[in-house]
């Protein structure tokens, strides 16, 4: 915003809506970018006004990850599409054991979308990026006709650097390794679903959306030999465990009683006919490490605000079928399978 009087009149954020001109490349678009995006994301790269950001390359291995966000509703208890777009991508970068450095963001806006809501989203995104210390250094905006989008879609890309000597990958789990989980599961999915269905519970269930790179850095520092990290987002813990088992060519055995689920989330799942194992999280991670390091890692995780309820939930076993099995609280054993299709509510 080097030239404050570049545009005739300010962007009407209070009552205005997105129209096709905001994506046309003309003056309206320039104004939207300057007064909304650059204003809130404010940093040296964006202020340069180039179509790209340049930065110095660090030694070591770089990580890149991209994530598209299409959530409905856009605002939910504990977050919104903006904070989610920041946390989601930071976490994807962090799960390589990396320190995230930069983000880029692409917005697809639907004609008619209120600018006030867009500002709320951008403000929330800017706050999330500032708190995480990962700036948004480049971006793009497109507008689609009314009816061809769902308000706003945001795609973010994250760049980061893996420290020397760290080798985290989904294919490194081996029999005997311990499986750790950083906290309660199902909070995000249930928060979104209950606001979508207008369900009200006595205690509000909030999304766990949070950036995990700080926690990951402390974990890596304590145990550089961590084998796998993954955030159990869509498809929940069940899907993440199955992905890791398949990638590493192993099986898993977890203990139902050790998997933390908040009572309100458990109750909501019971009511909706859902299994918390398959419900999305946005601020949790699964970690696989050598068994000997597990207790030490657990205490490091529990010392962090985002890992206070961390638990060792099971261990990796040799299994040619790559089954993820669970010992139930009853002492029986069952499979935790891949999610088939969408998780749909049951009628009886």
């Amino acid at each position: 915003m080097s030239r404050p009087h570049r545009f005739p009149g300010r962007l009407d954020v209070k009552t205005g809506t997105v129209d096709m001109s905001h994506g046309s490349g003309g003056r309206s678009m320039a104004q939207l970018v300057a007064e909304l995006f650059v204003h809130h994301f404010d940093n040296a790269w964006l202020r340069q006004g180039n179509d790209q950001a340049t930065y110095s390359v660090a030694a070591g291995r770089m990580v890149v990850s991209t994530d598209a966000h299409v959530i409905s509703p856009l605002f939910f208890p504990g977050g919104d599409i903006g904070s989610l777009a920041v946390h989601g991508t930071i976490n994807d970068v962090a799960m390589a054991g990396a320190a995230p450095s930069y983000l880029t963001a692409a917005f697809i806006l639907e004609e008619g979308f209120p600018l006030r809501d867009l500002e709320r989203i951008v403000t929330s995104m800017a706050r999330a990026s500032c708190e995480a210390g990962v700036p948004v250094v480049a971006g793009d905006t497109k507008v689609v006709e009314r009816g061809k989008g769902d308000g706003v879609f945001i795609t973010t890309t994250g760049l980061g650097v893996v420290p020397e000597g760290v080798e985290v990958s989904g294919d490194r789990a081996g029999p005997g390794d311990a499986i750790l989980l950083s906290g309660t599961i199902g909070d995000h999915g249930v928060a979104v679903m209950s606001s979508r269905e207008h369900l009200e519970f006595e205690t509000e269930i909030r999304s766990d959306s949070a950036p995990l790179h700080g926690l990951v850095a402390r974990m890596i520092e304590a145990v550089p030999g961590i084998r796998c990290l993954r955030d159990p987002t869509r498809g929940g813990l069940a899907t993440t465990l199955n992905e890791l088992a398949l990638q590493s060519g192993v099986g898993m055995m977890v203990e139902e009683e050790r998997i933390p689920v908040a009572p309100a989330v458990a109750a909501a799942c019971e009511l909706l006919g859902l299994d918390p194992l398959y419900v999305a999280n946005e601020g949790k991670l699964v970690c696989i490490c050598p068994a000997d390091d597990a207790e030490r890692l657990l205490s490091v995780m529990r010392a962090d605000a985002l890992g206070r309820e961390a638990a060792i939930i099971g261990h990796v076993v040799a299994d040619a079928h790559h089954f993820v099995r669970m010992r139930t609280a009853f002492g029986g054993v069952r499979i935790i399978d891949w999610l088939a299709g969408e998780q749909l509510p049951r009628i009886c």
Partner: protein
Amino acid sequence: MKYVDEFRSGERAVRLAAAIHREADAGRTYRLMEFCGGHTHAIFRFGLQDLVPVNVEFVHGPGCPVCVLPMGRIDNAIDLARNHDVILCTYGDLMRVPGSHRMSLLKAKAAGADIRMVYSTRDALAIARAHRRRQVVFFAIGFETTAPPTAVAIRQARAEGLSNFSVFCNHVLTPPALAYILRENARASRPAGIDGVLGPSHVSTIIGSGAYEPCAEAFSMPVVIAGFEPLDVMQSALMLIRQINAGRHAVENEYTRVVTREGNRKAQALMAEVFETRPAFEWRGLGKLPDSALAIAGSYADVDAERRFALPATAGSEVKGCLCPSILRGEDKPADCRLFGTVCTPENPMGACMVSSEGACAAYWSYGRFRQPATAA
């Protein structure tokens, strides 16, 4: 979680399991049919089969309303949504059920049909109020459990003058289905018969445990009305074993916290007012059963989607080789089917038992297939 944790206590389960081990006669087998998909789900989700002796076997019954809905009715619903310009409201589990030619409501929706997933009949009414110029059809399925809410919606639509709302009624009744299975079971040709029945739980809150007394009497069959929590299932299995050991065949009620012998009189009166019994109705797997389903009564004919849209009776074409029919009768187990786990999986279901999470095949596949690693994918 109050009212749930008490019925999922691992400690109590161990004590119940010990009692079952103690009281079950090692010299014989106990084949217990759990009627409902809810029971099947609990047995697999909590791994109950591991807790009972090998000679106590759970046989899966036909009590999954999604599974027993004949394909022709799914075809009708798909036709309604695609060709009659209606908003079709449906419960979630019906979305993926395959109709003829591998079509489903989910695929019809993707192709542009206006199909909405609802949690209750109230949601469907709200959609009808919000779209007065569109025809809104509620795809009603389920046993006696979900019939009263459908009846309430029909009365409500009438009271509000919601003339754009109608109901495609597919409610079915459990006692005739149980009678059919027990009649088949009594045939001498059956190699392994059923020794006892874990009776419907939520259905019984409506119709009462007394509704199964004629069946128990006619076929000398022990019946225990069983809740859906894992401890309910364990306790009911023990009660059945005791009846079998004593040579008794009564209807006992384990689920006393909600089920009475008489049931919910108010709900029964509502059903009697809004519905009439169909002379016969097809159950997938069991065939046409007399007096086994509900239609909308003549006095509410204007709310009946079957009449409003003149829906034809269609048969639907079942997939060749699919053992769903005999699995629903308790004669075969999922692993006996050649399609199971090969071409038929929850991602790509061929038969109805693989679609609903309460279906026996889906439960075997999702929770129990490590027991038969040969079929693992």
